[in-house]
């Protein structure tokens, strides 16, 4: 299967995320990689484009890394038309992300944040891997699933459910503190939940960072850093280290939890918090 990796407005973070697992070597072996800007010996993109225009070449998988501006959009469209499957890797390729914040021309393949961008017409061949960057396991896993013709089920943003139906909250080591409403007093400690004060988006963010660990070893919340919701279309929100509250209640509640349920549960949890959770030192 022929794969071409195209970079647009990017920090190259998804290439490095992909490489950070050794199984990336296996993925590269399984494909016929026509071009990758960071690996290929020379710039064969122009030749590839000529072949594609002539109709003598078609691609099986086109990977897009980075957001599309005017300069990249046209080239990408040409490649996309001749590709069977498009994998948009990272929030820039999917939603436009940081490069799109101050430039209205910049967008992802199907979206510009929550609006549709429709750079290409046929959305059915697109798989979106959100994240800034996408977790290496998701990139390697998705590319292998495509290689093996597995029909991955996708969510409404065309993200594989196997990677995006979890919440970051699932598998977080601080779950018990969340349940009993014990907040982290600051940073540098294993104790306390980061949802209440530090702005953690774990219960609202679709991603499996705590199921498939980063670089095989860790995750943000395990390292004491709040989740910033970097797999969602509103990333980067303002006030990334703050939990916004109204009358003492977080403005954004865990998905599916009503304000009434939250208040009721908090009251009970706070009344019956086990002493061992309160007493642990920092």
């Amino acid at each position: 299967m022929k794969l071409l990796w195209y970079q647009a407005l990017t920090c190259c973070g998804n290439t490095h995320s992909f490489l950070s697992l050794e199984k990336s070597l296996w993925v590269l072996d399984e494909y016929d990689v026509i071009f990758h800007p960071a690996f290929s010996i020379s710039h064969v993109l122009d030749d590839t484009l000529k072949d594609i225009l002539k109709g003598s070449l078609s691609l099986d998988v086109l990977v897009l890394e980075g957001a599309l501006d005017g300069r990249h959009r046209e080239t990408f469209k040409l490649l996309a038309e001749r590709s069977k499957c498009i994998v948009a890797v990272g929030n820039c390729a999917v939603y436009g992300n940081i490069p799109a914040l101050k430039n209205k021309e910049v967008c992802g393949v199907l979206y510009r944040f929550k609006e549709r961008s429709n750079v290409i017409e046929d959305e059915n061949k697109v798989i979106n891997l959100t994240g800034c960057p996408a977790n290496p396991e998701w990139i390697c896993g998705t590319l292998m699933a495509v290689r093996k013709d597995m029909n991955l089920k996708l969510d409404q943003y065309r993200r594989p459910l196997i990677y995006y139906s979890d919440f970051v909250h699932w598998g977080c080591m601080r779950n018990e503190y969340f349940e009993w409403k014990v907040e982290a007093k600051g940073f540098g400690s294993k104790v306390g939940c980061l949802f209440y004060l530090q702005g953690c988006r774990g219960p609202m963010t679709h991603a499996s960072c705590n199921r498939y660990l980063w670089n095989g070893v860790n995750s943000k919340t395990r390292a004491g850093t709040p989740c910033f919701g970097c797999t969602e279309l509103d990333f980067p929100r303002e006030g990334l280290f703050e939990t916004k509250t109204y009358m003492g209640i977080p403005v954004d509640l865990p998905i599916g939890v009503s304000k009434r349920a939250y208040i009721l549960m908090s009251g009970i949890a706070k009344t019956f918090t086990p002493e061992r959770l309160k007493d642990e030192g920092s």
Partner: protein
Amino acid sequence: MRVVKESLLTRIEGSASINLQIEGGKVIDAKVCVHDYRGIEKVLIGRPYMDALVINPRVCGICGHAHLRATVEAIEDALKVKHTKKAKIIRDITNISEILQNHVKWFYLYLMPDFVTKKKELSPFYEPFKGVKWRKAIEFSNLFVTMNALFSGQWPHSSYMVPGGVTCHVDEHTLIRAAEILNKAKSYICILDEDIENFKDLCFEFGLENIGNSYTHFLANCKVCYEEKQDTVKPDLIEERDDYSFQSKNPLAYSWALTVRYMGLPYQVGPIARAVKQKDRKVMSLFKVYKDSFMVRVLARLYEIHSLIEKLDQLLIQLEIHLNKPSWLRGKVKDLSGVGYALVEAARGTLLHKVWIKKGTIRDYKIITPSAWNLGPRCKNYIGVAEKAMLSAKDEWSAQLILRSFDVCSVCTTH
């Protein structure tokens, strides 16, 4: 006859091209053009200052951690917050492990394939995807990535440094894991040493030992790597100019990058600058003969792998001593306003961040990256550092190699 050659490069971070004018078997002019511009500094203005800890690492996928460190230390400087000694040790560990993964990948994935095009016998070792050493390099560099993530949570794009310290909790198990990874990394050094020798032979074979020289004003701020007590670089003397940048209105502009000058002069940054400033024995003996040639610039980066691995060993010992000390302390901030800067050594050289905060909000932000020093365009008085280095090239191939010896990162150059 004068020939103009324009070539787009692969095996760099991001997108860049060079424009060469070749006459009589010699490059007589060279321009480095960096294409993509994202405007990260503009995104920061008006946001709470803590947001910079999340946005700024996104400047660069391979040295984002250095941007995180520069951000947090600029904020600490602006708000007069101190971080703990333990946090300093952990920041050094992750800073250095990021530099290490970079150097390994750069040498094997970005530089060595150029020799494959000239010498087919090398392809079983260094050819992209298939080469034995190419593949080993991914394993080797990932050890440092794992080391980084062990403390920082994830790589790329961690935000685990916060004013006052770091967010992670470190215990004996973390230390043992880190020591285990470092031990494994050391087993790759003999392979690296073999390749350093191969590389030297190739330099002499292709006449690369004496070309690629540029300005020998070096700039490095060695607090991180070599325990210098104070900043030796004065940020007030750093000046950005837009003479030939698309960010100006000059019709002759050819790059999105800005030009950086120190006291009006071009300076070279990176591992060679760090080595010369520290009077590194191995690098100095080469420097005396070949100055900052292509070969010496590359070797300085490779020798740095040795010294930084040693440094990691010492840091893990220091961390053990400070294990029960706090990773983070809440600073007493009187006023959430101030101006601060930080100088950090990133893989490619000295990185400057400067922040203006008013009542907790970012008023302005300035990022000057190592690649802007080396790859930025010319100014009215001097041509760029990499541009000057390429003037000694005989052909397109050697000019490209010389440019590559600066470890090209276009995403940082423009950001």
